[in-house]
Each structure stands twice: as structure tokens, then as C-alpha cells.
């Protein structure tokens, strides 16, 4: 029982990470109808930029500089690659972001080397007991940060001018333009926010494991989360993240001894099942195609 509870707690922490990785993908998809396959690459590159800054700059300067650097990166991606592709067939968009993913992975390996990089231990060590369940302190900080980000993001999307404009843009680009919203600025904004959130995700995943070329695989697995939650729903991404984290943790707990590595593949099996049974996810918009 205790073990099951512990597994549940692990699943929740993992689920929060998946949510954090999934939310920027949903955000970009909502704003610009581009599914960002390159998200894992941006996570890795952003995480490595943060890593370099952490070792070479004082701590108070690191956060603003990283945000600026990564934001510029997000803007450049949007400006150079995705703006010319507006209105192109879906294959072009998918392949372009896929090529970006490989490009970022290769750039990271080329610049920072193939050796996994680990962050300096800036978060408190140790763990605390909640009842019978042990949770490590970095995990608690991670959950708090993610909840804070969600709160900020919710406020931004629902109460600010640009956030509301972004929501309108996700309804339809022509509609947004007819209301006087500059869609290009909204696209750029979505990519900048996504790149910053990706870096936060890269930091937490990298802090737990290490920054290596395997980090983007976490983003690939979180595609299952995005699709389970529904492509257009931030709420869905959070709930689906928690579900998928628990599925992975429990599959690992019960089957991990018999088939090593099955936990890692569980999201993909889940993805296949979602695609066959409910392709629009839990909270996604069911699109009716008319001839």
C-alpha cells in the first residue's frame, strides 16, 4: 500500500513535468495551428543556455538574461521558419518543426559536446515525508513553480489584452484580424512564451536527470499528454499530464521488473490507443469536416 502511494506520488511529480512540457505545445498550437515537434530541441538548447549562464554569471543576472536569450531564440524560430509557412500544407509544417528538432539536437551536441551536462546544485537537497510518502525537495519546488506558472499563464490568457487576443486568434485567424488584432504579433508572442516555458521545463528535467541528447525524448513522450488532453486545451494538458505521469509510474511499478523500460514506452502505447479511440482527446475541439 505504501509502495502504491509512493508510486502515486512519483506519478504526480512526473505528471507535473509532463504538464509543464505539454503546455507550451498547446499554447503554440492554439495561437498558430502549428504543432511544435521541435519543442524538445528548444528545451535542450534553452536548458544548455541556462547551464552556461549559471556557471559564468552571478545568480541574480541569470534569470533575466536567460529569459531574454531564449525569448529571442523563440522569436527567430517563428520569424525565419514559421512565418513563411503560413498557409502551407501540414506536411511542410510537420517536417519543418521536425527538422528544427534534429537541428537543435545536433547544435547542442556540436556546441556543448556529447557529455551529459549537470546543473550545479542550486535547489535544496534532501526530502521530506508527507505521511508515508517521501517527496524530494527539488520535486516540491518544481511543483510549486509549475503551479505558479500555471496561475500566471491563466491570468495572462484570461485577463490581459494580449492574452485575450491570443484566445481570439486560436478561434480563427481571419476573425482575429477582422477585430484589429495583429496576428503576427500574437504568433511571435506565443513562440516567445513557449520558448521561455520550454527552458523552465528543460531546467527541471535536466536537474533531475542531466542535460543530454536524450532530453528531447521527454518532449516526444509528452505528445501523448497533449493529445490525451486535447490539442486546444491548457486545462486538458494539466489533467492529462497527471494521468499520463501516473500511468507511466504504475506501469513501471508493476511491470518494470518483467520488461525493463516498459514505463518509458507506455506513453507511446497510450498515444496509439488515444489515436484509435478518441483522436480529439478529452477536452479538444471535435472538428467536423464538411465537404
Amino acid at each position, binding site marked *: 500500500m505504501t509502495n502504491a502511494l509512493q508510486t502515486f506520488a512519483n506519478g504526480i511529480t512526473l505528471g507535473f513535468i509532463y504538464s509543464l512540457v505539454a503546455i507550451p505545445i498547446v499554447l503554440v498550437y492554439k495561437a498558430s495551428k502549428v*504543432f511544435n515537434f521541435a519543442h524538445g530541441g528548444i528545451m535542450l538548447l534553452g536548458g544548455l543556455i541556462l547551464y552556461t549562464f549559471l556557471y559564468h554569471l552571478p545568480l541574480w543576472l541569470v534569470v533575466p538574461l536567460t529569459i531574454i536569450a531564449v525569448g529571442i531564440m523563440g522569436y527567430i524560430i517563428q520569424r525565419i*521558419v514559421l512565418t*513563411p*509557412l503560413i498557409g*502551407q*500544407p*501540414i*506536411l*511542410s509544417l*510537420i*517536417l*519543418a518543426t*521536425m*527538422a*528544427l*528538432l*534534429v*537541428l537543435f*539536437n*545536433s*547544435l547542442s*551536441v*556540436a*556546441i*556543448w*559536446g*556529447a557529455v551529459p551536462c549537470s546543473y550545479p546544485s542550486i535547489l535544496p537537497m534532501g526530502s521530506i515525508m508527507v505521511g508515508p510518502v517521501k517527496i524530494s525537495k527539488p520535486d516540491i519546488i518544481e511543483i510549486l513553480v509549475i503551479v505558479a506558472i500555471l496561475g500566471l499563464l491563466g491570468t495572462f490568457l484570461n485577463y490581459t489584452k494580449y492574452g485575450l487576443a491570443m484566445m481570439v486568434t486560436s478561434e480563427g485567424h481571419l476573425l482575429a484580424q477582422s477585430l484589429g488584432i495583429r496576428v503576427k504579433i500574437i504568433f511571435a508572442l506565443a513562440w516567445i512564451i513557449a520558448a521561455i516555458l520550454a527552458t523552465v521545463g528543460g531546467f527541471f528535467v535536466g536537474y533531475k536527470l542531466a542535460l543530454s541528447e536524450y532530453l528531447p525524448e521527454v518532449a*516526444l513522450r509528452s*505528445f*501523448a499528454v497533449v*493529445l490525451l488532453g486535447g490539442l486546444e486545451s491548457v486545462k486538458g494538458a494539466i489533467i492529462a499530464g497527471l494521468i499520463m505521469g501516473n500511468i507511466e509510474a504504475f506501469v513501471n511499478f508493476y511491470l518494470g521488473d518483467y*520488461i*525493463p*523500460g516498459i514505463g518509458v*514506452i507506455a506513453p*507511446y*502505447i497510450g*498515444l*496509439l490507443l488515444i*489515436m*484509435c479511440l478518441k*483522436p480529439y482527446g478529452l477536452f479538444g475541439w471535435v472538428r467536423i*469536416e464538411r*465537404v
Partner: protein
Amino acid sequence: MRPCGVYNTSYSQDRAVIRTNLQWGWLIAFFGFIFALPLLKNEYFLTLGILIGINVISLHGLNILTGYTGQLSLGHAAFMTVGAFTASNLVVEFNFPFLLALFCSGLVTSVVGVLFGAPSIRIKGFYLVMATLAGHYVILFIIHRWEAIGGFIGKLTPTASIGPLVVDTSVKFYLLTTIIAIVGTYVALNVPRSNLGRAFIAVRDHDIAAMILGINVAYYKFLAFGISSFYAGVAGGLLAFYFGIAHTQFFSLTQAVWLLGMLIVGGLGSTLGPIFGAIFFQLINELSTRAGPIIVKFLPGLGETAASQIANILWAIFILFFIIKEPRGINHMWQVLKKLYRLHPFSHE
């Protein structure tokens, strides 16, 4: 397109693939070139030729699926893995003759392809990409863990032999690959010219309209996955025998993305596209292998491993360039060039 004022006067002329004497000349010159390549006795050119040939076979399959039927698939590299492991296991464990094993690996891969392509009945476009992406990882995981067929260690393959003929030198392997690639190209050339190919194109252009025309959309989607995976299986089997081992490492997700990229760069939905794409990919690869160390020398900040990444970086940039600037690929550029040449002093037809 025929030039202005030239008309077909018989059905055989209308159906012909090769229409003019000049085209016959080009074709014979091309065949002469690829079959004369071994005479140079240059191992390097032969290696290039073999890799290009294998990629051409694999790409023809992907072209039928993605280019003609419009079903996007990221599972092609995984299907090649299935082919590689089937071929090597059939030859090693069951003593199949090489060519039969290659054919059977195509069939087995077809079954796997249809199985993992099954979601295409319900979903399309982006969702199908996700399903095949998941399929890629599931297939690779199963092969990785299945120790009886080689698992993560891989499966060593013996030297291929066709009857009494042992394919032990790269010249022989080159000729084998080239002949299979030519047969594959011939079939791929005729698929879109048949009613089968027209059904595929109808499914791609508008599946509901195709259904109204009486085309069984699900059946043709399955068929496209089957044919495409057959090509992938044969290409994977050849690759396993060329490298002497079937290993999951050759077939990463990057490989699947690169296959789609080669198709886009070459030209989607044309028979020449896969050939152009495969050649161009190999050229970029060789260029970066040569230029990589020099670039690294001039950029001293880069790490030791940078040189190995130059190929990926260059190729990714090329794919992005082609998607943004010329999404119809090299094939379209070639057609434009041909037209310019034919109409030379005049600018319009």
C-alpha cells in the same frame, strides 16, 4: 507535356513512358553510367552507389504512401528495421536463400505496416503522424527487447549468396542493389499510371470525393501502407546485409525524419523525386564528412564531437530551405529547367 504542335497519333504513343529518341539516349547513357561505375574500381564510389540505391528503394515506398496516397508516416524507419531483422533471421535461423528472404522480409514488413497503418482509417494528417510516431517507438521497443531475434545486440548476417553466386565484394553488392533499385523504380513508375495509382491520388486529393466515386478508401489506404512497407522491408534487408548486422541503431527517429526530408527535397509525388532526393542527401553527407573537420578548425569554440554533427545540421538547414523556398523539390526545378531549354528563344509556350 509535349511541345506545341506535336500530337500523339496512336495509343501506344500516348501511353509511352519514354517518348523521344533523345530520352532513349539519356536512359541508355544513364544505365551505361551506373553499370560502368564498378569499372572505376573505386570502393568509395561503390559505397555511395549502394547507399543511394538502398535509399532510393526505401524512398519509392514512402513516396507511394506519402506522395501519392497522402498518408504522412514517420514509421518508415521502423518498418525498415522490421525488414532488416526479418531478412537476417530468415537467412541465419531458417536457412532461407537470400533473395527469398529479402522477398519474405518485404511481405512481413507489409503485414506490420498495415497493422500500424490501421489508424489511418479513422485519422489523417497530423494525427496520423502522431500515430506513426508512436508506432515507430513501439516497434523499435519490441525489437529491442526481443532477444530471440537479436534484440539490442543486433543480428549478425552472413555474406549474401544467390544460388552459387556469392555476393562477397562491394562490386557484386552494388550490382545487386542497383538491379533491385531499377526493378523498384520500374514498379514505382507504373503504380501512378495504373488504376491503382489513380485511386491513390483520388484518396490523397479528397477522400470523401473518392468515396463518392466508388473507391474503397480504407482498402486503398491499407494497400498503400502494404506496398510502401514492402519497399521499406526490402531496403532494410539490403541494408542489414550490406552492413553485416541488423541493428536498431541504424533506424532512429532522425532517420525517419530524414527519409521524409529526402522526399521533400527530391520532389513529392514524382518518380524522379526519390532518386534526386537520395542522391542529394548522400552528396550533402559526403560534403559534410569532408568539410566537417575544416569547419571545426575555423570555429575553435566547438567541442570534439562537433564534426560528426555537421551533416545533420547542414541537412536540416537544407530541408528547411527547400520547404520554405521550393516545396515541390528538385524535381520541379528540373522540370522548369527542361521547359526553359526546350522553349529557349521564346519565353512562352
